[in-house]
C-alpha cells in the first residue's frame, strides 16, 4: 500500500529514513541501551567502597598491552548465596500463583462483561480502568488499611463474632499475592475481554447443537480459541510481578523477600552496585526469552 513511498533506492527517501531512525536511536541508545552495557560491565567489576562503588574493569591500557580485571565472585554468588536463590524461587512462586489467580478471577469477569448488553459495556470498562488509572501506590496503601490487625476486615469479623483475636493478614504471603492480583487484574482483564469480544459465538451454538454441555463447550471450543488473550494477559501480569518491589515492601513486611526487592535493597541499603547489577543482569537474561517469544508471535 505504501509502494510508491517505499522505494528506498530513491535517495530522498533514504535520507528521510536516516533522519527519522537517527532521531530515535540518538535518544534511546545513549540513555537506555548504554545503561545495559554498563550494567553488564559493573556486574563483573570488583566492589569498592568509594564513589562510584566499583573498580574499573579496564586497569591498564597502552599500545603495548591492555589489562582487564574481571571479577567473577558476583556471578558465583548468584548461585551459591542462599538468599538470591531463595528470593528467586519465591518470586517465581508468588508471581506464578498471582498470575494463575488473576486468570481465574479475570476470565469469568471478562466472559460476564462480553455477555452484558452492548450499551453497558463501555461504562463497565470505564469502571475497570478507574482503578487502573488510580495511583498504584495508593491502591496498595488502601489494602494496608483493610488488612491491618485493627483494619476494617478484622474489625468487621470480630464484631460479627466470627473470630476473637485479629487474624494476621497483613505482612503475609497472602497479602502479597492479593496485592499483586489486585494491582495487575486490569492487565489480565483487558486482553481477555478483547479476545472474547472477537470470538465467534456461533461456534458455541454449533457445539451445543451437537450435544456439548456448557462446561465441555467451554473447554473444547472457547478456551482453545482464546489462548492468545490468555497468554498476553499472563505475560503482562507475570513479568512485572516477578520484579515487583513496592507490594512486597508494603504488604509483605520484612520477611517477603522477592527478587526485585533484593536488587532494590542491594542497591539502596547495602550500596553494592556490582551485585545489584549482576542480579539485574540475571533477571534480564531470564526475561529475554519470553519477551523475544512474545515479540515474535506479534503480541507486542
Amino acid at each position, binding site marked *: 500500500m505504501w509502494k510508491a513511498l517505499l522505494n528506498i533506492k530513491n535517495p530522498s527517501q533514504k535520507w528521510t529514513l536516516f533522519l527519522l531512525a537517527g532521531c530515535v536511536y540518538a535518544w534511546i541508545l545513549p540513555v537506555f541501551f548504554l545503561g545495559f552495557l554498563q550494567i553488564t560491565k559493573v556486574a563483573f567489576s570488583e566492589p569498592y567502597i568509594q564513589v562510584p562503588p566499583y573498580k574499573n574493569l579496564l586497569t591498564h591500557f597502552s599500545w603495548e598491552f591492555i589489562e582487564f580485571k574481571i571479577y567473577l565472585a558476583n556471578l558465583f554468588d548468584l548461585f551459591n548465596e542462599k538468599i538470591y536463590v531463595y528470593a528467586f524461587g519465591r518470586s517465581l512462586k508468588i508471581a506464578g500463583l498471582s498470575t494463575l489467580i488473576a486468570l481465574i478471577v479475570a476470565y469469568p469477569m471478562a466472559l460476564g462483561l462480553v455477555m452484558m448488553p452492548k450499551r453497558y459495556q463501555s461504562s463497565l470498562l470505564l469502571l475497570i480502568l478507574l482503578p487502573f488509572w488510580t495511583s498504584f501506590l495508593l491502591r496498595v496503601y488502601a489494602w494496608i*488499611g483493610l488488612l491491618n490487625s485493627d483494619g476494617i476486615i478484622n474489625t468487621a469479623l470480630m464484631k460479627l463474632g466470627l473470630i476473637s483475636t485479629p487474624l494476621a493478614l497483613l505482612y503475609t504471603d497472602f497479602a502479597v499475592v492479593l496485592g499483586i492480583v489486585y494491582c495487575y487484574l486490569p492487565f489480565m482483564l*483487558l486482553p481477555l475481554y478483547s479476545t472474547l469480544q472477537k470470538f465467534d459465538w456461533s461456534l458455541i451454538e454449533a457445539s451445543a447443537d451437537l450435544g456439548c454441555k456448557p462446561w465441555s463447550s467451554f473447554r473444547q471450543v472457547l478456551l482453545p480459541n482464546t489462548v492468545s488473550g490468555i497468554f498476553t494477559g499472563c505475560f503482562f501480569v507475570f513479568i512485572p510481578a516477578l*520484579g515487583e518491589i513496592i507490594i512486597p515492601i508494603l504488604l509483605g513486611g520484612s520477611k517477603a523477600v522477592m527478587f526485585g526487592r533484593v536488587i532494590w535493597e542491594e542497591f539502596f541499603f547495602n550500596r553494592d552496585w556490582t551485585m545489584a547489577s549482576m542480579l539485574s543482569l540475571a533477571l534480564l537474561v531470564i526475561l529475554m526469552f519470553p*519477551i523475544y517469544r512474545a515479540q515474535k508471535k506479534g503480541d507486542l
Partner: protein
Amino acid sequence: MYNLFPRLRGALWLGYFFMLAPLIYVIVYSFNDSRFVSVWSGFSLKWYHHLWNNKVLMTATVISLQVAFLSASIAVLLGTIAAVTYTRFPQMRGRGFFSFISIAPMVLPEVVLGMAFLMAYLVLQDWVGLPRNRGMLTIIIAHATIGMAYAFIMIRNRLKNFDSAVIEAAMDLGATPLSIFFKITIPIIAPTLISAWLLVFILSFDDLVVASFVSGAEVTTLPMAIFSSIKFGLTPEINALATVMIVILSVGLLLISRKLTQKDESGMILQPPSE
C-alpha cells in the same frame, strides 16, 4: 449471543466489588474525624485541610505534574517518529532491533529499568559531563523513554489500520510527503496521540521505582513522598490525597473517554498496548 454460563453476571459483580471496594474504603475514611484509620468517629474535612497545608506533599505534587507533562510530550513526539519510521519503511535494515529496543522499556521490570537509566547517566556524565546532576531532568528523560515505548505501540497499531487510499489520493493530487504527514496523518491519528499522551502522563505521575533510582537527593516526586509517609505509618492525609486523585481521574476519564473511545481505533483509551 449464546449465553454459556448464565451465572457469570454474579462473577462480574463480585469482581467489580473486589476492584472498587478498596477505593470506596479510602474515599469514605478520608472524611473520618479520627486519627485511627479503622475507627469511624464522625464526619470531618480536617484531613483535606492538613493535606492542603502539607508543604512536602504539595511541592512534590507540583514537581510530579511538571515531570509528567514534559515526559508525556517528549514521549509522544519520539513515539510518533518511531512509529512512522517503523510503518513507513518495512524494508529498513535492522527493523527487528529497532522495534525491540523501542518496546523494551515497556516490558522490562522497573528495577532493571531504573538501574539501566542510572548507569547510563553515570557513563554519560563521565564522558561528556552531562547530565550535570541528577534531578528533574534525569527523571523526565527516563520517563520519556519508557513512555515512548507505550506511545510507539499505540501509534504503530493505529497506523497499521490506516486507510491508505487517502494517502494515495493525496499523492495523486501532488501533495508532498511532509504535507501529507501534517495535513492527513496527524489529524487522523490525533485521538491516538491524545490517548498516548494521557497514558504516559499517568505512568510518569505514578512512577516510584524508576524515579527513586534516577532522582538526586533534592528532588522528590509525589510517589516518593507518599511512599516515605506510608512507611512511617498510616495517615488519613493520604486517604484525602487518594480521594482527590480518584475524583479528578474519574471526572477526567468520563469527559475524555466519551470523546476518544469512538475515534481512537488503537483501542480503548488505555487498553494495555498489547492489543
